[in-house]
């Protein structure tokens, strides 16, 4: 039987690994290259790297961990694919089919589109046709407004007219293979996923939904898998605090009887 997945998300901003709170405040966690190994634990089913830099200039000021060079997403993809041997999704700053091709050639298995998908629907369609639906993820950021849930883009600055359900159906039609669904309001708040949002979106489409935003303890991961139709649970901030965090999360889900891969430290 196909398994539900647990996916750490790594956020990169101007060359550094960061934590995010509601897409507005960022805390620097340091060098992304040295974090790679720790977060590429075998209990992860996949990894998602999102580059959320606002411009192309990488921050060179901090050099506290002995890596003198800035860390581009490309270096990171190459490094990770040499040691991780698991599916890797890469997002951020993708504008063209060539951008996608470059990331796949470096070792990414899937790419994630966000703002560009809303602004240029055609790119999703062309990308799915060129590279296959299985490698096209559309990332959807959602915020609660006076009119209900709305899809937001450009790092939450643009509020679109799309409801998340309608946009999810649209991207499925365009050929996307998966949806990464982020709640902006829950991001970094540690009060759990927005289960209503997850349920609404996952219930209306046939392609898998990856839940993201709000995980404060392992119980939240289990809630989403038990109470909504999502295919995967993702989180970023929570995995940075302790050793073997992904393994402990996976063990919790496995021992709860959920349909996940057996956590690897137990298996071999």
């Amino acid at each position: 039987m196909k398994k539900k997945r647990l996916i750490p998300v790594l956020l990169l901003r101007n060359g550094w690994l960061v934590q995010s709170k509601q897409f507005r405040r960022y805390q620097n966690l340091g060098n992304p290259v040295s974090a790679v190994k720790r977060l590429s634990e075998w209990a992860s089913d996949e990894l998602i790297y999102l580059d959320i830099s606002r411009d192309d200039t990488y921050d060179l000021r901090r050099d506290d961990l002995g890596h003198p060079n800035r860390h581009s997403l490309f270096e990171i993809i190459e490094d990770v694919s040499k040691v991780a041997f698991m599916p890797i999704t890469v997002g951020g700053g993708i504008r063209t089919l060539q951008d996608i091709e470059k990331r796949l050639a470096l070792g990414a298995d899937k790419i994630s589109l966000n703002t560009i998908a809303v602004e240029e629907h055609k790119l999703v369609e062309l990308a799915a046709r060129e590279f296959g639906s299985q490698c096209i993820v559309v990332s959807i950021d959602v915020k609660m407004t006076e009119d209900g849930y709305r899809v937001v883009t450009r790092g939450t600055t643009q509020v679109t007219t799309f409801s998340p359900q309608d946009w999810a159906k649209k991207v499925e039609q365009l050929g996307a293979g998966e949806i990464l669904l982020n709640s902006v309001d829950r991001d970094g708040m540690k009060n759990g996923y927005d289960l209503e949002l997850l349920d609404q979106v996952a219930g209306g489409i046939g392609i898998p939904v990856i839940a993201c935003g709000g995980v404060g303890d392992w119980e939240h991961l289990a809630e989403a898998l038990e109470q909504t139709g999502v295919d995967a649970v993702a989180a970023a901030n929570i995995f940075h605090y302790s050793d073997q965090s992904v393994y402990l999360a996976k063990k919790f889900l496995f021992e709860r009887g959920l349909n996940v891969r057996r956590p690897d430290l137990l298996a071999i």
Partner: protein
Amino acid sequence: MSSVCILDYGSGNVKSVFNIFSTVADHVVVSNEPEKILGASHIVLPGVGAFGTAMRKIRDTLPMESLEQAVLIEKRPFLGICVGMQVMASRSMEFGEHAGLGWIEGSVEKLDAKGLPLPHVGWNNVMCKQESPLLAGLGDAPDFYFVHSFAFHAENPQHVLATTEYGEVFCSVIQQENLYGVQFHPEKSQRTGIKLVKNFLSLS
């Protein structure tokens, strides 16, 4: 000492396959040169994408005579991955009928997923049907990472080493003498993938 030749015919996942074999084998090359193929102890055919395209590229870029010498006559261990497994079949029905290499009797047909989304993407377990050195030490139902919409229907059930269920039950590991094929991606299957690669390299 194992020396591995990963066949180079423009398949997209060569880099990941090279990375995983490099962690286990002493000597790994990605090549389509006859000397490299004939000089290898183990031969690997990676593959992603459509069957017809893969077959055309294989016929256009690989030295078939040397490959068949190494694989069919000298019987060196051969591993086909994903589409690399499928092309060993007699034929495929993906985007019209295409002839395969015809090394193992059978046809490649669209998965009957019974309403589940296709492609079949994700971690799924492999149910071992027969004892095999390729699957040794992996337990009865190890999880591997899959990405595919078509599957190998073997003419001879004796050739099916393991099956997986996604709507229908399909052949996920095939073997005929020195020819092995896996529908999943060991290069994306973490430690179970590494174990399978080690097992393959222990074949002689």
